[in-house]
């Protein structure tokens, strides 16, 4: 369950970063998305973050769930800001899709 929450947090942060013009330019240069599209990314990001929160609480209770959720966000954020955006921006989109999928598999197995 924790891996799924981690995957969802990562995807959430990816979406939220794509809602910012700066990172749109980083990834897509001239084909940066317009404001309306960015708002959709923002919405998706918050929904995914909420899903990660819900999952953490369901799995670990109201005391430890939020603590775990904050931890997943820390990892996700560090991975994006310190690892992917500066050095491997092309990996971001695939990872944002793959990590929650892997997490789901791990949760069901």
């Amino acid at each position: 369950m924790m891996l799924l929450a981690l995957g969802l947090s990562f995807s959430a942060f990816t979406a939220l970063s794509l809602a910012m013009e700066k990172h749109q330019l980083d990834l897509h240069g001239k084909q940066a998305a317009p404001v309306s599209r960015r708002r959709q990314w923002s919405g998706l990001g918050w929904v995914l973050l909420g899903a990660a929160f819900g999952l953490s609480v369901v799995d670990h209770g109201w005391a430890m769930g939020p603590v775990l959720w904050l931890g997943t966000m820390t990892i996700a954020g560090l991975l994006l800001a310190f690892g992917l955006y500066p050095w491997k921006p092309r990996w971001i989109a695939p990872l944002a899709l793959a990590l929650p999928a892997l997490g789901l598999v791990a949760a069901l197995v």
Partner: protein
Amino acid sequence: MKNGFRQSMAWLHTWTGLLVGWLLLLIFMAGTASYYREEISRWMRPELPATTVSTDVAAERAVHYLQEHAGHAETWFVTLPDPRNPAMRMFWRNPESMVKPPVEGERRRRGGGRFGDATVDPNTGDKLEARETRGGEFFYRLHFDLHYIPVLWARYLVGFCAMFMLVAIITGVITHKKIFKDFFTFRKDKGLRSWLDFHNVSAVMALPYHAMITYTGIVTLMVMYLPWGIKAAYPTDEDAFFSEAFGGMPEVSAPAEGRAAPLPIQQLLDSARTHWKGVDVSGFSVAHPGAANAVIDIRQRDGRRLSVDTPALRYDMVTGTLLMESPASGAATATRGVMYGLHLARFADWGLRALFFLSGLTGCLMVASGVVLWAVKERPKHAKSGRIGFGLRLVDALNIGAVAGLPIAFASYFWGNRLLPLQLPERADAEVSVFFYAWGAALLAAFIWPKRLMWTWQLYLGAALFALLPLLNALTTHAHLGVTIPAGDWILAGFDLVMLAFGAMLAMCGWRMQRWTPPLSAAEKKKRAAAAAGGSAVPIEAKA
């Protein structure tokens, strides 16, 4: 004054961070290591076998040991083995009448002989035969008791630094104007900008953690820092505060006349487990063992709640009747319990513990990048005069000695554990000395020559010391990766692997430091851009 508030908060952030940054680095590194103090202790005593017996058998052996060696004690306190720590620790308190004055020349025991302790191997029921070491407990104690100074002074100093840190965190948030816009921003290879981005991201990504760990750290010792409320509300009986505020079981009355045999410990532990619907036991305390009115307080295993106060059940040891449950906590007691619990993170399972550890490391990076950032920002001001001023030189030296020197010290502690002779007297203290000698040497070297090359050397040295540890492990013990991975002993294997990871990271830092070139001046950049664009027919007069 326009922007006066943010500006003054920025100033305050700089100085609260810088003045105590190096000590904070020590506290943060040792504290972060403490998340794995049990695992570190296990790695540092590789002779220790994993526990193969059940909790009940372990408890039986504990009781047997205590009956033999502490039969006349007033209280026993036992921590049963768990997956992270295979040894059993027990403490006992002797009655006043039994306290002997210290023998001439003998080192006075802490507590004056009133207390006794033992670490027992649950597989054999005997005292543990493993190399004498303080293990991971050294790091735990280091981060609030420091070393070489009286414990009280150390705790006041650490509390002072923690307060500075709290102010630094708050002012940092206030000063960081674009905290949301720059949430994911890290511009690499841009000198000062990169250092600032790194500092910001490492701070913001784990901001709830940093604020929590700092505030809760102060909370753990708040009774020492702010005793005035106790004195005001309990002018005549301060002890009553502790029993009222920290809940727990009330004191047991004096021992009854006559002895009586207690029930088998397994039966008592089972009663507790049944009462808790299956949740296991972490340990127990016995008051007046052997007496007719002996009682046992059985504590629940950690991991089900944030609070450090775990529920307990009190049973009569002779009849087995449940006497009482731990009382419900008041709101403030529960709040303080959760604060304390969050700081210790005893509740954390392997996944959550890894997250805490990572957040702690991020904190170390935040503090380290902060002190380095100051030096990077300050240096151009000295470029005009050509000489480095006293303040910057001091900061440079401390930066190297702390940021690069502390990892050397930590790794050296582990090297000492593997290399010091097993029968060395005062071996545990010798290992600690290795830590401080190594750190002292790094600091001294940094003060003698605080240059970029010293950074490089110390980073590479730290990298080597960490990366070669698994090899040293293989050469000196039978608990190396070749054995632990096939055996699935992930605690010992994980330690070696993490050491390799730290070595790799430090090596990468050293390499980048080695390859660093000074940034080009604006004129240089223009010249190169023009040359790259094919060059004009007219040669440009370069002004260096």
